[in-house]
């Protein structure tokens, strides 16, 4: 280690935090002990940091902010003193028992229909623009070979897409969220900017996200089958989600 390297490390050093226990800082601090000039520089550095931190931490939020936060919550949260890790979240459609019951019936009927009729392709009953988009996404998912960024952490993939100013999924169904990430990609198709996250489960799943634009609410997923592949399409807030994989719609339904 030389003086410049020690400086580069010690600029991130805050003596009052646990950072000081980190071996990388210990080594740099040890080096500084034997370098009077570096020690003096570190004193000045920490003096400035301390003052600046105090000033920044002196910023006071608006007096009514805390009250506003508490009053603007979903009603189920705002009205009760709720344990954070038990009941605080809004019940989302894919977690509702009734939704699951209805979905299970729908899937059973749908699967029966698929088995009996065995269509090569199921028509998409949606806007023409969305039909083309779903088909294009399905084709794209067959041939994905290059990703912008690879990481097993799904949150990291979401963050990466956002830093690229790409659509990124704001809400993931829990089962999908628990899968291991593979990578992500940002691309444009006929004016639609899309974000893609690939998941590794028992097989590979591709989740495409784009701005919803004029597409109406799809509060429960619509399933489509294209030969050997299937898609599930739904909306959440201002985003359209299309999940694609090799196999049948029931393979997707088990994740949603």
């Amino acid at each position, binding site marked *: 280690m030389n003086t410049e390297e020690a400086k580069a490390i010690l600029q*991130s050093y805050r003596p009052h935090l646990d*950072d000081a226990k980190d071996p990388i800082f210990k080594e740099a601090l040890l080096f500084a002990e034997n370098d009077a000039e570096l020690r003096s520089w570190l004193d000045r550095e920490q003096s400035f940091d301390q003052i600046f931190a105090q000033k*920044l931490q002196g910023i006071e939020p*608006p007096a009514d902010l805390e009250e506003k936060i508490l009053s603007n919550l979903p009603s189920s949260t705002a009205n009760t003193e709720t344990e954070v890790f038990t009941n*605080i979240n809004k019940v989302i459609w894919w977690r509702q028992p009734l939704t699951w019951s209805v979905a299970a019936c729908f899937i059973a009927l749908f699967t029966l229909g698929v088995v009996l009729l065995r269509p090569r392709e199921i028509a998409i009953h949606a806007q023409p623009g969305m039909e083309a988009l779903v088909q294009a996404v399905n084709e794209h998912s067959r041939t994905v070979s290059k990703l912008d960024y690879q990481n097993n952490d799904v949150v990291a993939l979401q963050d990466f897409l956002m830093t690229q100013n790409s659509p990124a999924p704001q809400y993931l169904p829990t089962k999908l969220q628990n899968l291991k990430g593979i990578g992500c990609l940002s691309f444009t198709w006929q004016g639609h900017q899309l974000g893609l996250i690939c998941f590794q489960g028992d097989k590979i799943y591709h989740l495409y996200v784009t701005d919803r634009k004029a597409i109406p609410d799809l509060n429960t997923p619509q399933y489509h089958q294209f030969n050997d592949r299937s898609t599930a399409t739904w909306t959440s807030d201002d985003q359209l989600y299309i999940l694609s994989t090799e196999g049948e719609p029931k393979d997707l339904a088990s994740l949603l």
Partner: protein
Amino acid sequence: MNTPKDTENTLDFSNLVNTYYKPLFRFAYSLAGNQHDAADLTQQSFYIWATKGSSLRDPSKVKSWLFTTLYREFLRDRRRGNRMDSVEPEKMESEMPAVTQDVVNSLDAMSAVNALVHVDEIYRVPLTLFYLDDLSYKEIAEALDVPIGTIMSRLSRGKSQLRKVLLEK
């Protein structure tokens, strides 16, 4: 006042808000550069926590989760507003300008945050988290999803820019 440790173990939502809304607001202020947007970002972060925070399986990550969520919301808002991206400059600052005592003496909370706002966002975000003292540098790296070495270099460049801004004022 609640400690973060208390919060992460058993607290109810109002305690969570009480414990973290101030540091989150300060972080938001440095990102947005104005009180109104900072308050909105802070509120939105807690709203998201209320609607999906239970998906977080590790209670010790609550603090990082809130900071990360706020930063994501900021990026999302910016994307909707078509603001410019921050681009990491190629040039590395080799020497950090010294800040005079006069400058230090004249600092107050508003001038501190106003100076931060003039630092490139890519450096400002880790630099603000560094000065707010709520996250370790490893947690800052996790929150921003960049390697620890990158955080250190961004802190270095951010500090250099910050001092230039202060000297020019």
